[in-house]
């Protein structure tokens, strides 16, 4: 389909603030999210940079302990709930899900817009706590610190997170219903792109886990405001019960924060290798397995909390089991490159970096799941390194991969390839410099959430702080050249990467109603034209339509 025949793009449907703020077009809602999430990322990043500057010396010289505690609490809260949880689903997912399944929009376009407003309301409400004086509970809100002792604006922040939870649930419901009811003719489940599979799995987790977070936050707020003693040991409550509820949500939530990234990478790797994804079915099912088994392991955050040793052993066992589907994916991605025709455009670079960083973060997860080791490294920088490797090295890198991959589709413009590659390389170097030393720190016994620390840890902290500066540059560069490309970038063709997938069959940027002619699907996903494929790439329903 050539772009000059296509009707006007969704961007041309009006430019006033009204046309954006009242839009129900999923593509525009995606932009609303994109702009807000970018702001939150840089805000959270600024807090991180301040923390790293403080930690460059063992003494607490830049900020006071109270301020430091507020910094990491807000950093965690913002990065997790206001950036990473919605990151790929609400931006790329929102934009691409209907396109990828050949639908005109999500099932509930108004709900989609509403979810953004709810998100903004909740996140700004939580941010109000910053203006008022901040929160100092950590992102985990452990009781009874959060209910009885914290001197920050815990209720405000918790309530904000609670509201944002609604937006997450709305998105989840919308995606689930859309995938079930709006697939194009011929688009069977096993022809769906992996990105759609992962969004579906993510939505499942969103819908079923978020309410439990909501419940625990409600109880915290009730306890603070009304004095109900559910988690207060003095009143017979149990502080560990809060941890159970919190992690029942938060462990599955970490899979909310990685599955969409896995989806993106599963699109990018085949495209730039010009090969079908190796073991498509295994990857699709592994995504579902992660979503389901992810609910069984939350107790691994509580090995030394005083839960019974028996529970510890069970949760450790299940944690090792949940690593298996991820292992399957890593091997499948690697094998996808075999016998391909690989080129190294920016999205591909990011995807390869994802592969490396996710694997290293995931392997560190195995250390944490091994009980005796976790006793030592629990609540140390080893854990901090683990989750930044996965969340920043994995998910944020995947987000960058996806952003560059679909940027032409989103905007109709090409960015500067040279700058893209430089930024990818700078990020990779800066990232490892920032977070690799933290593994060593953790193994040495450096506890997390420390404002000051014994001088013998200084060397590794300095490396890490230096890395954070490089990393910051790595993240600032795309902000600049992508913004620049909006105005000066070359016009993008409909399918610049010669990729498969329905989203590439419509113009760049797509028309408001997505497709001039509604597509039907007759082929499996990742049907790259390749030389030398031995098996016939067909599936049983090929000639259904």
């Amino acid at each position, binding site marked *: 389909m050539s772009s000059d025949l296509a009707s006007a793009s969704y961007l041309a449907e009006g430019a006033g603030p009204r046309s954006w703020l009242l839009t129900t077009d999923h593509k525009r809602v995606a932009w609303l999210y994109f702009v807000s999430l970018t702001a939150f990322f840089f805000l959270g990043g600024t807090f991180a940079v301040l923390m790293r500057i403080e930690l460059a010396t063992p003494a607490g010289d830049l900020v006071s302990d109270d301020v430091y505690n507020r910094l990491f609490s807000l950093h965690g809260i913002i990065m997790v709930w206001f950036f990473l949880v919605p990151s790929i689903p609400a931006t790329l997912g929102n934009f691409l899900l209907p396109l990828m399944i050949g639908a005109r929009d999500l099932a509930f376009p108004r709900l989609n817009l509403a979810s953004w407003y709810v998100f903004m309301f909740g996140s700004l409400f939580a941010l109000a706590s910053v203006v008022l004086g901040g929160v100092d509970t950590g992102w985990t809100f452990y009781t*009874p610190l959060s209910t009885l002792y914290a001197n920050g604006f815990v209720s405000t922040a918790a309530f904000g997170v609670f509201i944002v939870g609604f937006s997450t649930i709305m998105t989840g419901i919308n995606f689930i219903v859309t995938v079930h009811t709006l697939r194009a003719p011929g688009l069977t489940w096993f022809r769906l792109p992996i990105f759609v599979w992962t969004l579906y799995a993510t939505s499942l987790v969103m819908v079923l886990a978020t309410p439990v977070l909501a419940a625990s936050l409600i109880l915290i707020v009730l306890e603070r405001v009304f004095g109900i003693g559910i988690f207060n040991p003095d009143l017979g409550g149990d502080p*560990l019960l809060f941890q159970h509820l919190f992690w029942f949500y938060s462990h599955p939530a970490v899979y909310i924060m990685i599955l969409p990234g896995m989806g993106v990478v599963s699109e990018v790797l085949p495209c730039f290798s010009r090969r079908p994804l190796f073991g498509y079915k295994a990857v699709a099912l592994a995504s579902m397995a992660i979503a389901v088994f992810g609910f069984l392991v939350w107790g691994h955050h509580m090995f*030394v909390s005083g839960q019974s040793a028996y529970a510890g052993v069970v949760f450790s066992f299940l944690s090792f089991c949940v*690593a298996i589907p991820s292992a399957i994916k890593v091997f499948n991605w690697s094998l996808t490159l075999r016998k391909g025709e690989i080129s190294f455009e920016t999205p591909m670079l990011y995807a390869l970096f994802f592969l490396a960083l996710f694997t290293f973060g995931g*392997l560190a997860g195995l250390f944490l799941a091994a*009980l005796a080791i976790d006793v030592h490294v629990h609540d140390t920088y080893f854990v901090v390194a683990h989750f930044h490797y996965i969340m920043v090295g994995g998910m944020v890198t995947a987000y960058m991969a996806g952003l560059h991959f679909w940027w032409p589709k989103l905007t109709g413009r090409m960015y500067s390839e040279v700058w893209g590659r430089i930024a990818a390389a700078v990020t990779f170097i800066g990232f490892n410099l920032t977070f690799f030393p933290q593994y060593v720190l953790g193994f040495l016994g450096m506890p997390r959430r420390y404002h000051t620390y014994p001088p013998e840890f200084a*060397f590794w902290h300095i490396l890490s702080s230096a890395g954070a500066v490089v990393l910051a540059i790595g993240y600032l560069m795309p902000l600049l050249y992508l913004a620049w490309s909006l105005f000066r970038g070359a016009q993008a063709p409909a399918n610049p990467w010669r990729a498969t997938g329905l989203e590439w069959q419509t113009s760049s940027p797509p028309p408001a109603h997505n497709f001039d002619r509604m597509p039907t699907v007759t082929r499996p996903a990742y049907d790259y034209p390749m030389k030398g494929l031995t098996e016939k790439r067909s599936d049983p329903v090929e000639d259904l339509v």
Partner: protein
Amino acid sequence: MSFGIRFFPQEASSIAGSVDALFYTLLAFAVALGLFLTVLVVGYAVKYRIGSAADRTGARARSLPLEMAWTIASLVMAFIFFGWGAVLFVRRDRPPPDAVEIAGLGKQWMWEFRHPGGQREINELHVPVGKAVVVSLASQDVIHSFYVPAFRVKQDAVPGRTANVWFIATQPGRYHLFCAEYCGTQHSEMGGWVTVLAPEQYASWLGSQGEGESLATSGGKLFRALGCSGCHGNFSKVRAPGLDGVFGQPVALANRQTVIADERYLRDSILVPNKEIAAGYQPVMPSFDGLVDEAELQMLMAYLKSLSLQSPSFPAAKNEAPQ
């Protein structure tokens, strides 16, 4: 060593070596696998870069045997490491029988320790080398966590319950003691040092700490002061169970269940007496919740345990400060 840059933590407890053995094995596995994957991916990336003349015939997009192989291999490796970690972990629950028991109390933002002989110290902990030490942890306010990296031990102190952590120090020296669970403003300042002393030095240190009253003795005084003895004493009018030797023994409850009178049970009996009623008695014991604080509770426990001659894990009676 190496310009003052540390790569490895000190090993100063009996379990440090075995934990590290697991750590380094897992590390070796991770590095090996990481290298393998790197070589694989970089190798493919170079060999099959666009325009290269590599042979691309015979490509496949799936291979059941291969997929089965790596799934099973991952499972096997996972189970090995799981089992290894779990075996080391469950030892945490079984302190050696002859351990010295020290009461540790976390509060914002300090650690307070009391030795069986009654010696008290804050943010410092002196222990003998080569002897098992159990620290029974409680918290007065929020959750704290007792962490000595050199010993590879960590345990949260959760308000409303007691938890034990034990270790056998193997190297005399001074080691960091941290609070690992975030507990508010001065979390990073909450901690100090564990000093491991040779047995003779330890004895003389205990002696130099002055004539402390033993924990159990203080507990005994409390037991009388609070009026416990009024009911539980030998000549009381109220029918209440005698507490001699109760610790560690099974207790029949009114609801026809039997529980072991462990620390949790004793603690609940004092704070929530109506929760589990001993069979054959009226639920008349008042709750002492709010009347005793954590430190006093620890003393009462020490006293109750000292009444248990059968209980091997409580040496308080014979351990009165050696002069």
